[in-house]
């Protein structure tokens, strides 16, 4: 079903908190990547917007960030107001393609874990090697569901 609609009439009322963290790895999680920079920013224009810069630990994990969200009960019934807040995440590590994911839903009282699979750069960069990767955070390419 399409609960994560683009056309909610009203944005969320962020009077509560939710939690978000990222796990950065390569090779399908076989190799966690320490020291990656992870940026978390509000995905909408608002006056309570935040911007965080986190680093991954040896397990490839960032600390858990507390971010503004609507209350957990906001999503208990269908409605026109978005029951979650949206955040954008970027990740950077030298030697890897940068990562970006837009409009990640974060709910009140709930932990959101963003898996970030980074792809190593080819040996000779600058050779127009621009892969079209699944899950590279481009919502148009990734969210292919038609309903």
């Amino acid at each position: 079903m399409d609960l994560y609609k683009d056309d909610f009439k009203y944005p969320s009322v962020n009077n509560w908190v939710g939690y978000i963290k990222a796990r950065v790895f390569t090779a399908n999680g076989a190799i966690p990547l320490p020291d990656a920079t992870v940026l978390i920013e509000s995905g909408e224009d608002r006056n309570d917007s935040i911007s965080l810069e986190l680093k991954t630990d040896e397990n490839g994990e960032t600390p858990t960030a507390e971010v503004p969200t609507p209350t957990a009960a906001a999503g208990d019934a269908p409605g026109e107001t978005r029951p979650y807040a949206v955040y954008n995440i970027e990740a950077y590590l030298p030697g890897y393609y940068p990562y970006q994911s837009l409009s990640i839903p974060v709910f009140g009282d709930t932990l959101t874990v963003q898996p970030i699979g980074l792809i190593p750069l080819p040996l000779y960069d600058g050779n127009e090697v621009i892969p079209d990767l699944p899950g590279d955070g481009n919502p148009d390419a990734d969210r292919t569901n038609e309903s």
Partner: protein
Amino acid sequence: MPNTPTIPESVTVHLGRPDQAAPNVTVSFPDYIKNVASSEIYPTWPEEAIRANILSEISFALNRIYTEYYRNQGYDFDITSSTAADQSFVFGREIYGNISRIVDEIFNSYIRRRGNVEPLFAVYCDGIEVSCDGLSQWGTVPLAKNGMSAMEILKTYFGDDIELVTDVPVGGGGSAPPVPLREGSAGPFVEILQTRLNRISTNYPLIPKIYPASGVFGPSTENAVKAFQSAFDLTPDGIVGPATWYRIQNVYVGVKRLSDLNSEGLTVEEITTTLPESLSRGDSGEIVFIAQYYLSYVGEFIDSIPRIRIDGNFGILTENAVKAFQETYGLPVTGVIDAVTWYYIYNVYSGIVENIPQNYTEGVTVPFPGIVLEIGSEGNAVRLLQNYLNYIAGSFSDIPEVPVTGYFGSQTENAVTQFQNLFGIAGDRGIVTGLTWKAITDVYDDLYFGRIAAEGQYPGYDLTLDGNA
């Protein structure tokens, strides 16, 4: 069709409608369900509503897999991400902590109609904009709030004659121990647990090593289990029930697959950087073997490229992998490895080897880059050379260490000359041709693998139950 349903180790998902050109990705079964549940419902719903929805999603997926619905139509995937055809799956999406925990607990359970073997084709829809002859997703919320359990909710929609099947056998590494493992437990299951955790901790260093790994579950095992549980969003209670057991298995399989591929390696004499001719379906031999190795390695890092067998025979699976590679890198999708495709495959492979943290690639040397390195050369190949030389310098005092700059200056030239003199390499001094490169990488490999054997850091490493399922 198998006699009784099992939980597959992995699911291949087509990222589009069945007949639409789109990549396939292969993910573990629990990861697939976590993704579907995070895409289909809200994580803030009451727990029994979430469980009812997850059981429907598991049963739906297992039905597709058990009946080989897509495979029977000639497709090379198990299920699609199309909500019209199957259930929502957004590759790489965020996962909610509570959904992850519940799926780890119940991914090897499903519902079926009493008297039937196959998992229920558990149709569902949102119940507001779309209604259907199945479960209403929104409808589960008030039912759970009225105190109904997940099974009572499911019976409301699918009828009283459905039943829950639990402890379904799990593919890819053996089933969980019959009783949870905890401090004081002992025996072969504990041994397997310790072996796997110790292997995982090599890649995930915040998980402490268990020593001695004696088959007895003591405090150091409990600490390692708790650290694993914290790292993978499980309840950190130090007790290994099915959820923790299968999660460990899942991570272990991924970690080991990559290191197996590393240890297979390629020797430099196996390498040709230029192709004699193009390679296509029906070809066989050494050069196909090398191409398959590169593609397999790349496939571990790039999800759209399927895994293939490295056997030296260019069959349809290799052709599909080549096509997926070409698609990913924007090359003409021919399934033929021509000079351009070879160049890309080689560079992508070499880039991975160079860019991932060094401890994962020690002993994995990159083949001769095809250009002679000498005074004035610069770039990644020079940086690799300097890394190899420094590693060798650690054991041979005649060879000086050099700064790793990526620039081939007089210090690098001197180190190369010393290496050539020490190992009696023919040819011009201080210049790295294919012959010298091969000698340097050979010595590096020997040193590296020699040390691994001497350290013997993983007692019982070979005592695994892989492949028993």
